[in-house]
């Protein structure tokens, strides 16, 4: 139905796409997979009319088209959920959902119809928030839901989902898949991008693999398995991320007692030992990120204490937190994690400036070398440390954020969705880095909505629901069923 052939696209000196070919079929879901920076989002932007290809051809229903802008794409029946959050904070949820075609009466926007339509869409996705709320009040996950509702709100013939589930927990993801199946049933062609193979296998009919901006293979999904796909993506086999690990020591490094903040979370207590990974699992809106914010001094708590090495500490600001050896990799890398308009070197060095320049005076070559070391050890795909972070692919941006904190050599690393949007290879690398980190006697608090990740990596799992702790599960007791039950009603 939609066919892109031999697409080429470069930015400055970077060849994002060399020779990309992609075919979507009506009534089928095609999964597009590839490493970070393989060019997946770039081709999505080309389909959406946001970029013009340097060369190549796009055919829709057999006819060659040139997609001039987003509006044009829309009018061709192409509907897209972009990887980056593209929500209007200042507009209501309803208007966000209907932004492409606001219902009109007598040439005037009809707010009543708009609200109705938004309500219907949100109900389909099992979302309960008020369509009149300004979208700025939503959490990042909810914003993604809004974005998905927007894409579904149209008689789309081609639906493109660029890592839609990265920010969602399985519940919302299931809703999305249900609707996607419904749409394919109605003859819609779907392009689905994800780094999670279980989703790919459960949803897709076909697959297509990109490597370094070129299509390397495509076919029916039931003819392949994970290992084959991984080999195609990476060009080599990847060992599954290590799960065997040394037992954590008995000494507590971080202890949290009865942390509460009005309207966000209530009576949260947990402890993390040296050499331990504590997973925090919950549905979207469970308040996990808020707890992390409070721990890192980004917000104040109403009651409760934080102890490090058994000593109560006051953490009133991130500066305090960093001084006490904490580090926080936030969930929204675009606005909170990375500084997109600065170089990789500037980003990586920022938290470590004190160590890099004890006498206040900075040296550029020292910073570059420092950054290069971390670029290498996390294998960030980039021409060099002077590259702007904004020009990196999503996954590589995430690696930069990780690098900047690991470089600071913290004792307690709090990570919020650390592998959101990261490909298998990189994910294994990140996991390895985290294991290595705890092996030195440090501790990790990992917030994740990805159940396999939580189960695989954590020594213990804290489950939260609606701002409250629902229990801490030891490794042995942490079965998927038990955790999901604790995270949902029941």
């Amino acid at each position, binding site marked *: 139905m939609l066919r892109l052939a031999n697409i080429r696209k470069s930015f*400055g000196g970077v060849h994002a796409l060399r020779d990309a070919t992609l075919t979507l079929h009506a009534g089928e879901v095609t999964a597009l997979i590839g490493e970070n920076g393989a060019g997946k989002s770039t081709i999505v932007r080309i389909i959406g009319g946001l970029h013009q290809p*340097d060369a190549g051809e796009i055919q829709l229903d057999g006819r060659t088209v040139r997609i001039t802008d987003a509006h044009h794409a829309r009018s061709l029946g192409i509907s897209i959920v972009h990887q980056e959050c593209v929500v209007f904070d200042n507009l209501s949820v309803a208007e966000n959902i209907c932004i492409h075609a606001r219902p009109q009466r007598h040439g005037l926007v009809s707010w009543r119809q708009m609200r109705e339509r938004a309500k219907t869409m949100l109900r389909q996705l099992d979302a309960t928030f008020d369509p009149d709320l300004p979208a700025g009040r939503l959490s990042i996950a909810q914003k993604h839901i809004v974005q998905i509702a927007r894409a579904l709100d149209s008689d789309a013939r081609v639906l493109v989902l660029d890592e839609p589930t990265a920010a969602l927990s399985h519940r919302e993801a299931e809703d999305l898949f249900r609707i996607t199946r419904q749409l394919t049933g109605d003859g819609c062609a779907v392009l689905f991008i994800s780094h999670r193979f279980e989703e790919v296998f459960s949803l897709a009919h076909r697959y297509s693999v990109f490597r370094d901006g070129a299509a390397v293979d495509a076919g029916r999904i039931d003819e392949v398995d994970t290992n084959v796909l991984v080999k195609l993506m990476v060009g080599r086999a990847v060992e599954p991320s290590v799960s065997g690990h040394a037992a954590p020591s008995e000494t507590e490094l971080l202890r949290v007692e009865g942390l509460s903040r009005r309207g966000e979370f209530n009576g949260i207590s947990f402890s993390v030992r040296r050499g331990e990974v504590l997973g925090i699992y919950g549905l979207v809106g469970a308040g996990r990120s808020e707890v992390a914010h409070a721990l*890192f001094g*980004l917000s104040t708590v109403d009651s409760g204490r934080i102890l490090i090495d058994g000593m109560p500490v006051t953490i009133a*600001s*991130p*500066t305090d*937190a*960093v001084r006490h050896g904490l580090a*926080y990799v*936030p969930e929204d890398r675009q*606005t*909170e*994690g*990375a*500084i*997109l*308009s*600065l*170089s990789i070197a*500037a980003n990586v*060095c*920022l*938290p470590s*400036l*004190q160590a*890099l*320049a004890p006498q*206040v*005076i*900075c040296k550029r070559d020292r910073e570059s070398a420092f950054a290069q070391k971390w670029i290498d050890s996390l294998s960030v795909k980039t021409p060099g440390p*002077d590259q702007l972070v904004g020009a990196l692919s999503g996954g590589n941006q995430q690696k930069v954020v990780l690098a*900047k904190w690991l470089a*600071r050599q913290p004792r307690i690393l709090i990570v919020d969705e650390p592998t959101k949007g990261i490909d298998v290879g990189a994910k294994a690398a990140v996991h390895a880095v985290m294991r290595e980190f705890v092996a030195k006697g440090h501790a990790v608090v990992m917030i994740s909505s990805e159940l396999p990740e939580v189960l695989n990596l954590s020594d213990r799992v804290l489950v939260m629901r609606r701002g409250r702790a629902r229990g801490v599960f030891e490794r042995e007791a942490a079965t998927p069923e038990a955790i999901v039950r604790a995270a949902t009603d029941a």
Partner: protein
Amino acid sequence: MKAAAWLRWESMLALVLVGEFVVFSMLTPYFLDPLTLSDATFSFTERAVIALPLALVIISGDIDISVAGIIALASVAMGLAAAEGVPTGGLVAIGLATGLAAGIINGALVTIGRVPSIVATIGTMSLFRGIAYAVLGDRVLKNYPASFTHLGQGYVFGLVSYELCIVVVLALIAGVVLHFTRWGRCIYAIGSNPVAARFSGVAVNRYRLMLFAATGMCSGLAAVLLTSRLGSTRPSIAQGWELEIIAMVILGGVSVWGGKGTIPGVLMAAVALGIFGFGLSLLNIPGIVMSIFVGALLIAVVAVPAIGERLRIGARP
């Protein structure tokens, strides 16, 4: 790639500066005269004293429109003190302290009060000058000691004014801080993305407060110099300077979006604007006609690189 952009901007300014010297020395015989050039420096020194710290504020993503108001306030404070017989040293201290206090008020509004800086300083702009008017009314304060008057009118080696020396020293300080220290790195980070900077453990609000305080204090310093040069204080002193100073900073290549800009650029822009204005008035071109040139220059300096960029991209197939 970044270095190239940096160079392009500086070279634009350098070109403008050289062009000014060539054109003016061709058009008027009085231009290339040591005494004249020495006089010409006065047309930018006091503004440059403020432009330098203000550049840091703008690079960190804020703006301060109240600087001229601070000059009026500090000048009035000094005038009142002088009327009480405070000696020169005390007057300078009072000027600096008043500026510092005003800067801290701005900083507090922006950090503690969380008011966007442009809004806060539009308010304090009227507030500070308003206090000056309220205190002074139609009076004039001019009982300054002779040694005080000497500050703004004195010279080193007969030709280099104290004011110019102060500008050079300040530029060195600002340049080193911005380009060679970790504080400078943090300033760029804050200007590029304050949220991410805060999440990286940078004490964002402390930096912003300090920068506003520094700008306030330098405005106080400018008030000392200007008051000393005028030898009198009226509440209308330095009226309208805020926009001129901001224009100077922007012309220096500092991005009003924050995160971009260099001190050499700002310094060159200050000199270029000062010489430009002085040169045109040497040619007896009315100031208002001059404003056409200045406006066009301002736009051209940002537009030429932008057009170049477009052509470069457009040229590639």
